[in-house]
């Protein structure tokens, strides 16, 4: 990423600073989640390039596994990427560009103008913020992540009564727990340290005799998300001739 000529009125970042901002941009993009797969777009390798000019103008290019990936999820990722990068103090402008997608031009221009989903596809939708879609998948993601934590605790010897008696503060440290609590916060489900560690999709605490059934269903949701993510990764890898990602779970 070669820094290009400085724009007037920008912060005029020196070479080293450009690199720092670029790192900040990538870190901000780590926080942008594919709402369907519940994984950061950076980890999914959807960010194909990040350019930063000394003036603080940032251009982010996104690529998806196929040219026909669902426009609603594509839009959410592009919009979230813009929001995340715009928050950085040293960034003057942000351009997010969705590459090689059949609705790329519509999505790119709506994002550039700060418009919602209706702005991208006038007449084709009456859902501007896709909030219900996002929430549906946040609940699925929470269920799937709880299932993985719960399974590993039970593998370590806890029984049903132990599991339902656990509190938030007793959840194991790690990224699954961090993301679980983040999702609970976004869904308005309490996550106070003395609240229940595991909840039903509607936020109610689990009870011991429901645990087997809940876990069975939760494992299926997790499998579905993982399999879907696996297909997306394979398609992206094939489409762009990428090397296998060593960090992949499978």
């Amino acid at each position, binding site marked *: 990423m070669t820094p290009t000529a400085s724009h007037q009125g920008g912060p005029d970042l020196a070479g080293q600073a450009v690199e720092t901002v670029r790192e900040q941009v990538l870190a901000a993009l780590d926080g942008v989640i594919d709402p*369907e797969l519940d994984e950061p777009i950076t980890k999914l390798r959807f960010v194909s390039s990040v350019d930063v000019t000394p003036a603080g103008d940032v251009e982010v290019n996104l690529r998806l*596994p*196929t*040219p*026909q990936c*669902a*426009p*609603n999820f594509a839009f959410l990722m592009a919009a979230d990427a813009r929001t995340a990068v715009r928050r950085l103090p040293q960034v003057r402008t942000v351009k997010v560009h969705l590459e090689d997608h*059949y*609705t790329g031009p519509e999505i790119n221009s709506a994002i550039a103008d700060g418009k919602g*989903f209706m702005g991208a*596809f006038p007449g*084709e*939708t*009456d*859902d501007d913020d*896709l909030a219900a*879609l996002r929430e*549906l998948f946040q609940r*699925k993601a929470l269920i799937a992540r709880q299932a993985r934590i719960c*399974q590993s605790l039970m*593998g370590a010897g806890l029984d049903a009564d132990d599991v339902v008696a656990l509190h938030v503060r007793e959840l194991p440290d790690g990224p699954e727990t961090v993301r679980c609590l983040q999702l609970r916060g976004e869904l308005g489900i309490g996550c106070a340290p003395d609240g229940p560690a595991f909840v039903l999709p509607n936020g109610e605490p689990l009870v011991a005799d429901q645990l087997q059934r809940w876990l*069975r*269903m939760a*494992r*299926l*949701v997790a*499998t*579905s*998300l*993982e*399999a*879907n993510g*696996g*297909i997306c990764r*394979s*398609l992206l890898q*094939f*489409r762009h001739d990428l090397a296998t990602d060593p960090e992949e779970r*499978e």
Partner: protein
Amino acid sequence: MYERNGEKYFIVDSHLHMWSAGPDNWVKGAEQYAKGWIECFHAYMGLGPAETHWPIEKFMSYTHEDFVKDVFEDGGVDVGIFQSTYLREWYTNGFNTAAQNAALFEKYPDKLIVNGRWDPRDGEKGLKELEEDAKKYKLQGVKLYTAEWNNGSRGYRLDDDICKPFYDKCRELGIKNIHVHKGPTIWPLDKDAFDPRDVDQAATDNGDLNFIIEHVGLPRIEDFCFMATQEPNVYAGLSVVIGGLMHARPRFFAKVIGELLFWVGEDKMLFGSDYGIWEPKWQIEGFLGWDYPDADHEEFSDYPRLNDAGKRKILGLNAAKLYGIEVPAELQIPGAADREDAQLVEAG
């Protein structure tokens, strides 16, 4: 018939296409969509073993000869079922219409079954077309796209009232198998076209019809499973599940199959290669040799096992039942006939 290690298997491939997707068939002004669509399919082919990949030129326009070799000769498919996909906005003569499929059907009437379509929003005209198609192609099944646009409508639900006359017409015409596409769809843009909840009510209200959910609602397998487990006449169409996961993601594949065996069961799962996306041979060969990668591992330990009899059902015998296909006695599950006789004797 497919032969493996001296064992013979009856194969019904319930999901086949004979498409035409080359530049000669692209609608003027919509070339980018037609090209994007087939390139997207071609990327899916990349999920199979490298030695089975085709160049894009062949993939766009494979021939009847390719089909016969890949499906009948190498794949050992006894009976194949065509699912039609129209996409006339992008492909001048349609992508994969019943008429295109029928050209092969006329050459191999004993080995191929053509499924038709209906769209409840077409009303009387649609009912008439269905009647004509049923006669022309001896329809026993249809393939439906609930998310398809039609005259300003952005999709419909299988439990909408406008579907009722079509279910009745199916009954009248002897069409028993309703295949429903619940999987990747382009339009409408703002709806979750994978949502299979409408199948629930439709299957309850039409207990004498079979609902086969293609691609098991991928990527929403959970929504499909929660529904299918409650409905005896709902089946899982495995196209894309085997082709897209078995080779590329074997551990995920094992979990998905384990879940389907648990929620849906081996009596209600149907093999479909989704040819031309993937050739059937490697899928059949791999599935016959398949087992959980590490059956005692906690990830897999409480999933139902799948034995040779279960594989026979999934690869052919289940679909043969739905479509009234006669299966030679030597290709049935070994010992099954004896057991049935024994049960009859006991019951008598």
